[in-house]
């Protein structure tokens, strides 16, 4: 706990910079760093998975599988490609989709290999993890309450647009137009973050 990049977390405790932790996992196969990433992300992934309808046991499995993937794939994470939280979000999302599709026996390999091969380019983001997350969070806060609601229902509750329409009581076309407006509003703020 001596890394100078540590910042006070919301609870007043210091929370290490996930990018530095991930770097230690990739370079040194450092299990203490993996344990710290676990402490930061596993409970949040579990919470997100439960909100989208997984029971506690399945949500916990998905959180564990996500962290194990982080251990396996740490070397594939391209530093400067954005927040570690974003990368871990995409891993958790893909594992959940994979789990939903398991009957079809077609693992969701997503686009990660294609992306890494063809897009490891562009100016790396010079912002730190916490700054990226703060900026995106602040950007989301600037949305109108209606726009924020559809974005949250879409990402955190992972509801299909048709279900959002039913839950909020608006037509499907309105869900889509609110998402479009939300993105137009967020886009300039996400532009240089990658």
């Amino acid at each position, binding site marked *: 706990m001596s890394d100078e990049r540590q910042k006070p977390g919301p609870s007043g405790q210091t929370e290490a910079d996930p990018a530095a932790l991930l770097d230690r996992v990739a370079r040194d196969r450092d*299990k203490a760093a*993996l*344990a710290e990433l*676990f402490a930061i992300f*596993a*409970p*949040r*992934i579990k*919470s*997100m998975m*439960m909100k989208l309808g997984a029971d506690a046991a399945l949500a*916990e499995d998905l*959180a*564990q599988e996500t962290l*194990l993937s982080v*251990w*396996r*794939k740490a070397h594939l994470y391209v530093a400067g*490609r*954005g*927040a570690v*939280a*974003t990368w*871990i*979000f*995409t891993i*958790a*999302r893909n594992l*959940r*989709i994979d789990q939903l*599709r398991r*009957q*079809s026996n077609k*693992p969701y*390999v*997503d*686009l990660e*290999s*294609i*992306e890494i091969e*063809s*897009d490891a380019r562009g100016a790396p983001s010079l912002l730190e993890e916490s700054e*990226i*997350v703060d900026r*995106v*969070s602040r950007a*989301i806060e600037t949305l109108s309450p209606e726009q924020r609601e559809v*974005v949250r229902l*879409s*990402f*955190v509750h*992972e*509801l*299909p647009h048709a279900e959002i329409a039913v839950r909020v009581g608006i037509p499907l076309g309105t869900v*889509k137009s609110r998402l479009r407006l939300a*993105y137009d509003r*967020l*886009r300039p703020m*996400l532009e240089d*973050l990658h």
Partner: protein
Amino acid sequence: MTIAFHPDISTLMAWSAGTLDEPFAVVVSTHMAMCEACRETARRTDLIGGALLKAETAEPMSDGALERLLEAADDERIDLPEPRGSDSVDPSVPQPLARYLPDGLDAVKWKFSGPGVATCELPTGTNANGRLMLLRVGAGKRVPEHGHGGQELTLILRGAYGDRFGRFAAGDLADHDEDVEHQPIAEPGEDCICLVAVDARLNFRSRVIRTLQPLFGF
């Protein structure tokens, strides 16, 4: 490849959130494998998911969860290369589609669906609501005019077609809502082969029968 038509941003946001039904997700992923602009956009929409994950409240993990993770990490002796999914024998089939079409486009068993039009349904998981199909329109032939019972995503894999929205060539994706009516006509010279996801949930069934029956034989 110059791509002129992309998925609607609301469709890309759903892809990023992981809420797209399997057939639609396959079409979008296949387009993204061909389209750098949409990969760039998806990186931005993924940021939203990452920020929301970071803002999640913590749901405590059960006792011993960390120890089990570290044990599992111990068992991972070597960095095995990531499974790349099955690669298709056909270079014109991008990887996200290769899992559904391992033998390539030339091995597809087409089913006659009208003059100049053939289809082939691709199997998806039992959780899928919509259907994933290949559509082949003979060079210079037209698809019967139709509307859509729900959302329809059409990605051009080979050849090109034109309709009232413009010219769609390989890599272009048409993202149509219900209410859209059109009549695609394949360009002469080469058959046009498209990957199509259609919404075929039960509550749309009566409309689907009216609109897409000639094509997909619902």
